[in-house]
């Protein structure tokens, strides 16, 4: 399986790009993640599910460098990853969205999405001042990517709108746009559909599938809506009280007794 496999719908899944090994994360007395290992393969949509407080967001925060685990090791593209600050992780091509939307509220949609390109702006301050042609060319290239993402996510009509004025569902979409503008190799989505109505959820599902399909972006996402998870994901990690209680295809996970117990609220011993 190391070399990957082909999904039912014909997408090629590659080798392991991200591997979490024996991750433990504590906040004082609270153990948010208990000795969890799992991997993410090139090109797949990997879901992380579990009841509230299970530690899902914490896991995403470990991957993106926002939290530093007390134990365990993260492997990225086959190499052990040294402890990194979140901005360093982002510069490695890992983009993310947040459970409680983190947008630049004072900027327009376009400017927000444009910040996703900051890492691609190579020319520094002085070059920009003295070597105008180079900076302009770079700006044009970045604009093109940004406009493509905006078209792709169908938010042309709000390009110039200040983000603070947008309804919740659109904010989530702009946040995704900003992450996509970075052309990430790994995309982390923390509850991209939370608080959306059915129609918005369908749109978002379609976008996620299209991103994965068209750009081959590897995606790890957290989602509560089981229907959505089963439809979207190739493999699912299930967490409960900081522990991993299941890992496999949606079907395998659905029939796992521990998972069923966790979701039905069977008492813990």
């Amino acid at each position: 399986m190391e070399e990957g496999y082909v999904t039912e719908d014909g997408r090629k899944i590659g080798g392991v790009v991200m591997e979490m090994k024996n991750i433990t994360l504590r906040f004082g007395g609270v153990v948010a993640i208990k000795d969890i290992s799992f991997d993410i393969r090139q090109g797949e949509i990997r879901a992380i599910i579990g009841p509230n407080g299970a530690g899902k967001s914490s896991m995403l925060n470990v991957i993106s460098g926002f939290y530093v685990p007390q134990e365990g090791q993260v492997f990225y593209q086959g190499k052990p990853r040294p402890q990194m600050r979140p901005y360093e992780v982002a510069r490695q091509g890992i983009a993310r969205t947040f459970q409680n939307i983190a947008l630049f509220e004072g900027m327009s949609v376009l400017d927000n999405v444009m910040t996703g390109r900051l890492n691609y702006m190579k020319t520094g301050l002085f070059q920009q001042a003295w070597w105008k042609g180079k900076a302009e060319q770079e700006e044009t290239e970045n604009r093109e990517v940004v406009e493509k993402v905006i078209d792709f996510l169908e938010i042309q009509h709000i390009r110039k709108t200040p983000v603070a004025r947008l309804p919740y569902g659109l904010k989530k979409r702009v946040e995704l746009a900003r992450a996509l503008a970075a052309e990430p190799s790994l995309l982390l989505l923390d509850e991209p559909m939370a608080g959306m109505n059915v129609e918005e959820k369908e749109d978002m599902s379609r976008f996620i599938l299209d991103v994965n399909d068209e750009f081959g972006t590897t995606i790890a996402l957290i989602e509560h809506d089981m229907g959505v998870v089963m439809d979207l994901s190739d493999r699912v990690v299930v967490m409960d009280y900081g522990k991993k209680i299941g890992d496999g295809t949606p079907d395998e996970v659905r029939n796992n007794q521990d998972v069923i117990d966790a979701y039905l609220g069977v008492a813990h011993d």
Partner: protein
Amino acid sequence: MPEQLIFAMEVTLNGLMAGVLYALVALGFVLIYKASGIFNYAQGVMALFAAMTLVGIMNGQVPFAHLINAIFGGHITHFGWTIPSFIAILLTVAVMVLLAWLVQVLVMKHLVGQEPIILFMATIGLAYFLEGVADLMWGSEIKTLDVGIPQGINLWIDEKTYNIFGYGFFIDNLDIVATIVAALLVTGLVIFAQYTKQGRAMRAVADDHQAALSVGISLNFIWVLVWSVAGFVALVAGIMWGTKSGVQFSLSLIALKALPVLMLGGFTSIPGAIVGGLIIGVGEKLFEFAIGPMVGGATENWFAYVLALLFLVFRPQGLFGEKIIERV
């Protein structure tokens, strides 16, 4: 035209020019506050420190000469050279960048995520520390600063206004230069913030730290940058003020005048800082002109603070802030 009105016009112009300096100091506050939520009490002292460093470098003063002499028993005070003002300004900019880096690495980095009041206290500490360092480095006597800015009455304006009104306005050349420099500085800042990579990153950090991190911006780097820019603004303010009234410790008190400016303009608005500075500058000069004689003068000492107080009562969000609506 009635005589009083003509005088009032002259006073207004002079007020505008004074307001430019208030605006400059307030601008330094706003930059740091927006990017890091830190109310930098040391902004005024930074202007003093910058001006003292500039004078010291230009005069070829040996830094920490007192200390060195006390330890080694020498009598050195000067290197025996002078340095042209343009080069000295560049060197001072380098010193201010170094200062920004030290502040970030030695102090602010360790206080990330602390309460605003703690950060504020840290800057009070910084202010007194920096004042002490400035004293130790360059000595505490009043120094004259002359980087070649023309001073004295502008004869062209004097003549033109005389031809029109039959009364020549007294406008100081230094004030005109200060206004032009401040306008250039603000334009430069706006271009920097809008069009450069670092400027965009700066705006991003000012807006949301988490989001900024997620797009690959190093907060540390941006904070050093912002403190450097604030240091540069402080240098410009220090040059203007120092040229006008000599470089002395009272310079750090101009920071206090920036407070009412911020109450008017709001703590996070760059246009607010500018407009607020101008309003206070004009307001206090006009008030002194019109009301001062009736109440025995010296209204410039308190006018700005009373105006700020009125604003706090009737429009606490400042001129440009959004209306504060209490959510219950």
